[in-house]
């Protein structure tokens, strides 16, 4: 790791002030950023830790919306969202391993937008709102391709607001070495339609499978997807799976998610 200074503010206002320094960067759980620093792929001047800022933590329900502070760990979401949004809690409880879940946070995962990460699928399928210190960003506008988001320099996520669906499920086909999703599909059914988001599969990052959404909005059954195929053209191709394999998995996992969401 290159040298950097370290700050651990206790309020959002202090954190934002510290982030004004040139090449300052927020540190959340460090489960992505610390390995990146070890490889010398990042060289911040100051790391501004979010771990002591209580106002960025916690799970709270407001009517039909579940609000999760950006610095809430995966383990906390797994425990505290279970009674409100079980599919989201199960997703959080399936990220990485227990030690990763005890440090890693929802804000860090979304800001990072790894093409194989789990949370982006939940945020996009739920039509959640990403709240920052400056504005509210709709999920459809937030994710902008591999490791790219709508966040501006120095802007930090403070909270994520999830509309709670009538039924939902996340199916993750785990890549056993990295523990990330080889492919993951999140299906969420709302009164006004179904949303389907796919992670791990596309070279453009998390995306909505619109033809599946249309079919499932008419009829919420696995059979409604018969005959629908994902085009493998833009799929990721690596030693863990070909484009065709990933395209096939998208269909299989979507059907499984619908079957599980129907209960």
């Amino acid at each position: 790791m290159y040298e950097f200074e370290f700050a651990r503010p206790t309020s959002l206002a202090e954190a934002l002030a510290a982030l004004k320094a040139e090449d300052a960067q927020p540190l959340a759980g460090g489960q992505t950023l610390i390995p990146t620093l070890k490889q010398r792929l990042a060289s911040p001047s100051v790391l501004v830790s979010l771990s002591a800022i209580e106002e960025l933590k916690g799970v709270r329900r407001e009517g039909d919306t579940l609000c999760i502070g950006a610095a809430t760990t995966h383990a906390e979401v797994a425990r505290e969202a279970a009674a409100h949004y079980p599919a989201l809690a199960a997703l959080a409880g399936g990220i990485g391993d227990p030690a990763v879940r005890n440090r890693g946070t929802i804000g860090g995962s979304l800001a990072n937008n790894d093409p194989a990460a789990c949370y982006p699928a939940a945020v996009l399928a739920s039509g959640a709102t990403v709240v920052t210190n400056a504005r509210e960003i709709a999920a459809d506008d937030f994710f902008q391709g591999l490791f790219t988001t709508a966040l501006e320099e120095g802007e930090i996520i403070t909270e994520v607001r999830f509309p709670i669906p009538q039924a939902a499920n996340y199916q993750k086909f785990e890549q056993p070495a990295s523990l990330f999703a080889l492919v993951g599909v999140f299906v969420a059914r709302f009164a006004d339609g179904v949303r389907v988001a796919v992670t791990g599969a596309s070279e453009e990052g998390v995306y909505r499978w619109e033809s599946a959404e249309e079919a499932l909005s008419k009829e919420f059954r696995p059979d409604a997807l018969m005959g629908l195929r994902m085009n493998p053209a833009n799929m990721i191709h690596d030693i863990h799976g070909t484009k065709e394999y990933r395209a096939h998995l998208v269909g299989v996992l979507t059907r499984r998610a619908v079957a599980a969401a129907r209960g």
Partner: protein
Amino acid sequence: MAQVSMTVNGKPVTGEVEGRTLLVDFLRNGLGLTGTHVGCDTSQCGACVVHVDGRAVKSCTMLALEAEGAEVKTIEGMANPDGSLSVIQQAFQDHHGLQCGFCTPGMVMSAAALLAENPKPTEAEIRHYLDGNLCRCTGYHNIVKAILAASGQDVSIAAE
């Protein structure tokens, strides 16, 4: 350099660290607690697992300064006060849950965190909980047996 203070295995400690000093480096080089191991550079092997405020974390993936004011427990803090092995450690010995021993400190700390949360885990729950602890020697079966035994359960239910 900055000063950091925390409680390690019940004792208050203070030391000088850089911003980039990892918790594992502070434990090993700063405090001489070399029981916590480093087995990878990618946050994947779990040899470095310690407890911070009662929760299992990878000490190679946490800055020492992030542990300011925390209660840290390492493998050196696991034995009974009279120096005899704790139930979990003894079960690893009895059931041959280790060969070279490199992964063992992390395995024992993860096992202790699991049993604190879930005192009678099933075999499947044990295997799932150890997702982030890699062992290159044992093939895991004897580790699973040791944890079943430490939780007072029949070890013969574990697959051979």
